[in-house]
């Protein structure tokens, strides 16, 4: 029984009241049930005309520095190494000790028609600058990695709630019933907070992100033991189907029996389909070169970007990609430069490739981290460290495709990059905006749990209109 069935079989007083409310039309519940009959991942109508039908969500784990990427602060050159006093009442490990300003080790330059700022180490990204919409107004609420990652990935900084991709597939279903609708491409080691970053939370498990693992089997246990051939599996599945058929005949009204039987067959097909889709050997040399697949620095992220394009092309609704190592408290010059190098070519290729295949208009590409970084740093190990701490008040993110205002920079931070000062919005407004572009209304995309209707924004938010193309 899925939890949506409980309106039909009220088992508790609360469920009874809920089903009563539902029957009065407080939610389009009969509509939901009708869709359920066609399978939980069947394509569903959006709430309004969608700008994008798929989303590629690129998460830079660790907190990329806005100051050293897309939001340069020349003022810091004058202040470099001067003592910094943090105003306000926020105390954390990130505001203690002797603090001093840190200038960016990189030069920045203007790119694209709009003259956007981009650090010198983005060599390829300027080629697609006019497709990008930069946003400098978003603020997170936590300076701890797992908390902030949960917040940006699930809308709830305490974790446990469904991932953005879970909400999107719950709202829209998926166009390919032979692949999961919500796929996660993480590094071999999962990001901080682990699978909580793509959990289905209180939504049914259909809406859980499925990680296609970076090494080893793409999905755990997708293949049986080595001595079991495909023919052997077929025989065993046939025996299972036999056993199930006579049982099902006795229980004709239980849909999940048929659903479970279908799953075994889907699993059998996926054993061929999944390895096929992740096998990039057949990609032409030009594509391999474009994504940087054959370079050890750009290869891993390039592979995930190319996979994302292939998955979206196959009708997968939401692809969430992680790139770790952005947490540069020290050795900023070396470590951020390496991170930028590792993503610059692949991200550019992804946007170009989507564009040339006519997919960019209907695909929303999102690039962000869990927070930005501070204009200052503090003594580490008894000495000066050229790096930056975490900063929940300012960060840079960019979007491409699906209905965003291409070639624009929206919002601004103060003159040292300490806090956002224009078009300032919390993460929940960013989430509401992403849903909006995908044709979903956060206030309508709800699920009853824990005694109330829950939604991605937790308590409602607003669309950031400045980011929209129309």
């Amino acid at each position, binding site marked *: 029984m*899925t939890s949506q069935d409980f309106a039909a079989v009220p088992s508790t007083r609360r469920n009874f009241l809920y089903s009563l409310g539902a029957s009065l039309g407080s939610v389009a519940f009969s509509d939901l049930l009708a869709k359920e009959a066609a399978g939980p991942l069947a394509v569903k109508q959006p709430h309004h005309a969608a700008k994008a039908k798929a989303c590629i969500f690129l998460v830079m784990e660790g907190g990329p520095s806005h100051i050293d990427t897309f939001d340069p602060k020349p003022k810091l050159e004058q202040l470099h190494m001067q003592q910094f006093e943090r105003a306000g009442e926020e105390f954390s490990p990130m505001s203690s000790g002797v603090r001093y300003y840190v200038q960016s080790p990189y030069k920045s330059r203007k790119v694209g028609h709009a003259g956007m700022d981009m650090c010198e180490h983005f060599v390829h990204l300027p080629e697609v600058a006019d497709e990008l919409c930069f946003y400098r107004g978003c603020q997170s609420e936590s300076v701890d990695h797992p908390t902030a990652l949960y917040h940006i990935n699930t809308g709830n900084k305490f974790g446990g709630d469904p991932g953005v991709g879970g909400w999107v597939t719950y709202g829209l279903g998926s166009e390919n019933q032979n692949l999961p609708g919500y796929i996660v491409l993480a590094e071999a080691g*999962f990001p901080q907070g682990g699978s909580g970053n793509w959990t289905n939370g209180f939504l049914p498990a259909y809406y859980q992100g499925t990680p296609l693992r970076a090494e080893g089997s793409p999905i755990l246990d997708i293949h049986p033991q080595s001595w079991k051939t495909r023919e052997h599996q077929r025989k065993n599945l046939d025996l299972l189907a036999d056993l199930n058929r006579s049982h099902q005949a006795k229980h004709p009204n239980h849909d999940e029996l048929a659903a479970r039987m279908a799953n075994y067959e*889907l699993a059998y097909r996926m054993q061929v389909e999944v390895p096929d889709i992740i096998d990039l050997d057949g990609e032409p040399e030009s594509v391999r070169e474009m994504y940087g697949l054959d370079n050890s620095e750009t290869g891993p992220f390039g592979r995930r970007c190319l996979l994302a394009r292939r998955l979206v092309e196959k009708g997968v609704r939401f692809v969430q990609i992680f790139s770790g190592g952005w947490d540069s408290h020290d050795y900023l010059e070396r*470590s951020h430069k390496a991170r930028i190098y590792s993503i610059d070519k692949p991200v550019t290729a992804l946007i170009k490739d989507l564009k040339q295949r006519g997919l960019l208009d209907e695909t929303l590409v999102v690039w962000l981290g869990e927070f930005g970084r501070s204009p200052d740093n503090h003594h580490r190990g008894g000495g000066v460290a050229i790096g930056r701490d975490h900063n929940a008040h300012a960060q840079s993110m960019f979007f491409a495709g699906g209905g965003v205002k291409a070639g624009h920079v929206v919002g601004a931070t103060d003159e040292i990059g300490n806090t956002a000062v224009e078009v300032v919005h919390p993460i929940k407004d960013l989430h509401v905006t992403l849903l909006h572009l995908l044709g979903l209304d956060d206030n309508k995309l709800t699920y009853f749990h824990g005694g109330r209707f829950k939604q991605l924004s937790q308590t409602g938010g607003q669309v950031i209109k400045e980011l929209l193309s129309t």
Partner: protein
Amino acid sequence: MFPEANAEFQAQPRMNQVTIAPAYQPSRTLEQRNRRSLYTYRMRMQTAPLFEVFNQPSYDLSCERRDSSTVTPQAFTLMNSDNSVDRSIAMALRLQREEDSVRGQLQRAFELTLGRPATDDEIAKTSAHVKEMAAYHEQHQPELIAPARELDRTVVEEMSGLALHYKEKLDVYEDYVPHVKPWDVDAETRALADVCLALFNSNEFIYVY
């Protein structure tokens, strides 16, 4: 206690705040690890795959009501995992201990899993299956897979952004008590285990009406 879990899951690097956590290692003895899931050690950051595919409630929220669902990874887990195969081998060995004839073993298998006698049709089908699979398993010997005794680790150090390489020793395997594995038993037992595996996966075993 720590049950055995998917080998790739056990070897997966796991980040804690600032540092890397030690590898997952199952409990050493059968007594320690073959216990109800109630007693398992839970890691919030990395849910055991068996529980994850079956809607384990989040550790971070109270759960007023368990959900159930049918998703494809459940089929992978129940049909293909080493755990499922090991359980089916254990079941086949028990059947062979308790009954002499294949027919008696199959009858007992239905009683134990489904709580009812098998029909004649079911006995006929499963006997034919055991016979056919025994011939198959004669031709397909399982390869012995010994658990890794150490893992190669790479960590990117948080402050410097530099990669560190090291070997992590898995000490539990120095005197580990394994389950009976497929390569420990003959073709006939593996064939009987195929039927047990199908029974464990059957709707009638999974659902109670």
